[in-house]
């Protein structure tokens, strides 16, 4: 039918002697300074931030309505004053305390729900039904119940916070669990892992990219909700949190302070993203090759 080596005759065969690998080490192309700069994620992020800040500054200068939309510099000054006076740090601390508690409990409840959902069939149905029903409900729907159960104060705020954290985390975690490949599942079962150990040792790390995303979303919505809840609930007893700081200043029309409060939210968001989530990502899903 056909011949094997049509053009082979032209080429000589050769055999090289066995040799240890050349001391290869690291071969690297030289990068131009621009490539070096651009290759640095931090540098690129700072560029993004600078562009956003400049956009803010220039737009606010165009609008010329400091009561509605103060300039970036005014906001920074207000932020600095608030920090220097110790008021802003105090408010931030108050809010972060509640936030951390709500977020922590929310993650725990979400973990319970998804554990229940992956171990029993009724749990799956409960989770998907409850999520479909409750997730779209606005916080005000929960307030009467929260007030009934816990009265005023932090516990009621926590209920509202939980409502923001649980569903996105549970949805992402559960969907991540469902996406774990059959091979990995079987490997886990093969070692005799069952129930919670199976979830913790196999499903959780295997679904970690999804879980992280859920945690990011839950975190952001916890913040949003906390600020909104503090606006509604006001301060009960203690000095009040960042939401209350924003509300008070809004009422006093100290718009620069309002934006300073929001700037605090932004800065905390950036810090948490870059210090917590990014570090976790680098130490887990990136290192494991589960995400690029």
């Amino acid at each position: 039918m056909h011949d094997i080596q049509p053009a082979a005759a032209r080429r000589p065969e050769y055999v090289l002697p066995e040799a240890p690998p050349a001391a290869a080490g690291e071969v690297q192309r030289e990068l131009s300074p621009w490539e070096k700069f651009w290759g640095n994620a931090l540098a690129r992020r700072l560029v993004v931030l600078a562009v956003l800040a400049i956009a803010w500054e220039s737009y606010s200068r165009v609008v010329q309505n400091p009561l509605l939309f103060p300039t970036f510099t005014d906001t920074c000054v207000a932020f600095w004053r608030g920090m220097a006076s110790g008021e802003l740090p105090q408010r931030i601390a108050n809010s972060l305390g509640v936030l951390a508690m709500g977020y922590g409990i929310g993650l725990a409840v979400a973990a319970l729900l998804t554990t229940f959902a992956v171990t029993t069939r009724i749990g799956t149905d409960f989770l998907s039904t409850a999520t479909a029903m409750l997730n779209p409900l606005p916080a005000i729907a929960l307030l009467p119940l929260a007030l009934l159960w816990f009265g005023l104060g932090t516990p009621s705020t926590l209920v509202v916070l939980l409502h923001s954290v649980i569903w996105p985390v549970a949805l992402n975690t559960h969907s991540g669990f469902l996406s774990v490949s059959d091979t990995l599942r079987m490997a886990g079962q093969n070692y005799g892992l069952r129930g919670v150990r199976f979830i913790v040792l196999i499903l959780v790390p295997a679904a970690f990219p999804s879980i992280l995303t859920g945690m990011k979303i839950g975190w952001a919505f916890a913040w949003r909700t906390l600020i909104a809840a503090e606006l509604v609930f006001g301060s009960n007893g203690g000095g009040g949190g960042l939401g209350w700081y924003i509300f008070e200043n809004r009422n006093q029309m100290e718009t620069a302070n309002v934006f300073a409060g929001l700037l605090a939210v932004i800065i905390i968001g950036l810090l948490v993203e870059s210090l917590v989530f990014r570090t976790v990502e680098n130490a887990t899903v990136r290192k494991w090759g589960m995400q690029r």
Partner: protein
Amino acid sequence: MQRDLPAAATPLLQVQGVTLQYRTGRHLVTATQRVSFEVHRGDRFVLLGPSGCGKSTLLKAVGGFMAPVEGQIRLDGREVRGAGPDRMMVFQEFDQLLPWKTVRQNVMFPLLASRRVARAEAAARAVKYIAKVGLDQFADLHPHMLSGGMKQRVAIARAMAMEPAMLLMDEPYAALDALTRRKMQRELLRLWDDTRFTALFVTHSIEEAIIVGTRILVLSPHPGRVRAELDSVTEGPGSPGFGALQARIEEMLFAPGQAAQEPVHA
């Protein structure tokens, strides 16, 4: 050398009229149909058959990952109801390693997870078996940094390190080059000499089946049914007995008119 095997009255594994099916949405795929065989203690039992005939599925059923829709699978007389560390499985897929663990941790994991041995012992075994599969240099890498064949070798090391009573291996050497493959086969036989485990081994290489197996089950194409159950030979490749058995199996598998010796190049 040891001829004194535990000659138990009942076979270790009894597969009796087992039909295995996959149901996904509208589709129903029958993987094997009324397959029966028995594996005795100390057997190195090979499943041989064409691609898609249900070898992996059978192995999964024995592993306890899948229940038969018909028939029964008994291990030690008791019906198999779930997976467990008494039957270590090497899967066919490359993604069977835990991506979040290094090679070493992957090998140690089943030992620790099944609470078989203490951490120190697990670490020692990991070192030993990683060396056996020739991956000492790569012990601290994560699986995504390994080549296909290296991943399979880690999976083999992981299963062997458990020193299980029963080893289920699904084409473990398929991704390996001739040299590495031969080395692995030798390691398996050496381990068998030491611990006399029972192995259920899937392969698509007739030669490998004869080298590795003591008993060979030949399956027909999709859906898999038993064609024959044969004894292997003791002689090595190249010997007349080996060649005869190889020819016999080839004839059995290769449909008539498609003789094995048909020259590939016209």
